[in-house]
């Protein structure tokens, strides 16, 4: 079994900041906008190096989305930065009409997604953003798993023409993907090979899925872990090929099971190859204050939860 190790942990938002800084040096059309959260979004390096290409909008996210849409007219590639909650739910209609329906090349970059925002609590812990964004026609939805992948994704989406939602987070998580791994939008990455169960995970849950696969291995169960960094367009082929072999699947995400990655996987399976599936995600609930680890434990979003669901779904084969 292929195993993964790490020497360093970092927050995925820093991967965004590093990717944005690199874009600042390589792509003169990239501009950045922020609604009064530049330290949280790690935008400092870009701002320092390209002050003329940074736009401080103030605490006015609706205006920010409209300005970003307008900036595409003339050929700029705007990257907007704020918390995931304010980047989606707060401005859904602005994104829908001025960006998605208007086919504007805006990159909506969202930090502090999910429960791992921690102590700030449910007002800021959005668990519905993947669902909101994947429902918009034409919107690409990406949720990378570590620093390296977030940096690579940030750079990759500048090359893609069209609206993108890029979701990342606050906590430090293991860096286990190669720094030189090319990011291909819509292309799943198989992390481990296995025959008994497929684990399809996104974002912070990918490392947890790898930990779960280790624990399952000790019980004699071989799990195939697939890193889905792009929730839309979904890599149907990779998922179908894996479940054809394993016959069951667990999906894992830091998001409501209603509207998340799991439901997208379920649609693919239901229409192509109905397969037993279990969901790791929050269950139609808001979050609360606590440390990220406490929250992931309480809401069953960790490796232990994935192991439990894997054992359950294998029994349903």
């Amino acid at each position, binding site marked *: 079994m292929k195993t993964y190790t790490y020497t360093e942990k970092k927050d995925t938002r820093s991967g965004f900041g590093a990717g944005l800084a690199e874009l600042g040096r390589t792509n003169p059309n990239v501009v950045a906008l922020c609604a009064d959260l530049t330290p949280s979004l790690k935008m400092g390096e870009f701002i320092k190096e390209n002050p003329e290409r940074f736009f401080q909008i103030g605490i006015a996210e609706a205006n920010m989305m409209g*300005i970003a849409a*307008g*900036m595409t*007219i003339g050929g700029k590639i705007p990257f907007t930065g704020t918390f995931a909650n304010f980047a989606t739910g707060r401005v859904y209609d602005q994104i829908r009409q001025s960006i998605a329906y*208007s086919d504007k090349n805006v990159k909506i970059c969202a930090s502090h997604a999910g429960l791992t925002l921690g102590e700030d609590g449910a007002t800021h812990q959005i668990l519905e953003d993947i669902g909101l964004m994947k429902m918009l026609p034409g919107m690409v939805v990406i949720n990378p798993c570590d620093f390296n992948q977030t940096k690579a994704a940030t750079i990759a989406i500048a090359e893609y023409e069209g609206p993108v939602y890029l979701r990342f987070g606050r906590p430090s998580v293991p860096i286990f993907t190669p720094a030189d791994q090319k990011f291909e939008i819509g292309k799943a990455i198989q992390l481990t090979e296995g025959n008994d169960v497929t684990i399809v995970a996104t974002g912070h849950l990918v490392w947890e899925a790898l930990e779960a696969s280790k624990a399952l291995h000790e019980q004699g169960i071989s799990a195939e872990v697939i890193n889905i960094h792009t929730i839309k367009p979904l890599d149907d082929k990779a998922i179908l090929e894996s479940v054809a072999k394993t016959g069951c699947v667990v999906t894992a995400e830091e998001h409501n099971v209603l509207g998340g990655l799991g439901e997208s996987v379920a649609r693919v399976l239901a229409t192509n190859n109905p397969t037993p599936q279990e969901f790791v995600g929050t269950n139609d609930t808001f979050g609360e204050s606590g440390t990220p680890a406490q929250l992931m434990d309480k809401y069953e979003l960790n490796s232990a939860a994935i192991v439990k669901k894997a054992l359950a779904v294998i029994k349903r084969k």
Partner: protein
Amino acid sequence: MPNTKQLEDLTTQVRRDIIRMVHKVNSGHPGGSLGCAEFLVTLYNEIMDRKDGFDMDGIGEDLFFLSNGHISPVFYSVLARAGYFPVEELNTFRLIDSRLQGHPTTHEGLPGIRIASGSLGQGMSVALGAAQVKKMHGENTTIYSLHGDGELQEGQNWEAIMYAAAKKVDNLIATIDLNGQQIDGSTDDVLAMGSLKGKFEAFGWTVVEIEKGNDIDAIIKGMAEAKAKSGQGKPVCVLLKTIMGNGVDFMMHTHEWHGKAPNDEQLAIGLEQNPETLGDY
């Protein structure tokens, strides 16, 4: 440059287009469309420095953004008659498979449209983004936008109004169609907004008032003043006092025709009041 008579003839034809389009599909918004006919005809044919043809980026030319997208009939007519697409296509307004959707969109690739609008309050932000890019490019061009007065009840406008002044976006001339009417009645009855002039000035804008917003000479004079006051560190707001339904007597001075189509008889009266000038589509 066309003379006033030519602009008036074009406006009369645009009015015919508006009521014929809305009548044919028994839906759409004639009142606000008629009220802004003189303004948009003058803007596109006299004020704006436009290039031939259409490309989305609009480098090196003035751009216009319609925020109150429900007045799409006047926008489509003015665009078609400015050469952006064939006037015959006005026949397809609001029909299935048409590029002329109920509210303007880029999604169907209609030349002349740079942003979807209809859900109110979003156009000024978009215009600001486009204006800031013009500045980045070092262009000496102007961004024009049009907004309904009732539309200013949407909060996003005030985010944009605050931002425009703070960031000195002085290549934006935003016009407010001050017809005093909205769906549920007069703006004063629905949600009185007090002095818009005072509000814009308090937010740091230069305000130009056009008292006769349905008079082409007054529009030319007022917009020239607005242009002269742009580029001086402040965004410019034009308060354009119009009469909703202007040019069709039974549609004037009321909100009744905000979103209602004329019947056959009413269409005939409206057309009689606006004889054909440049030829119907």
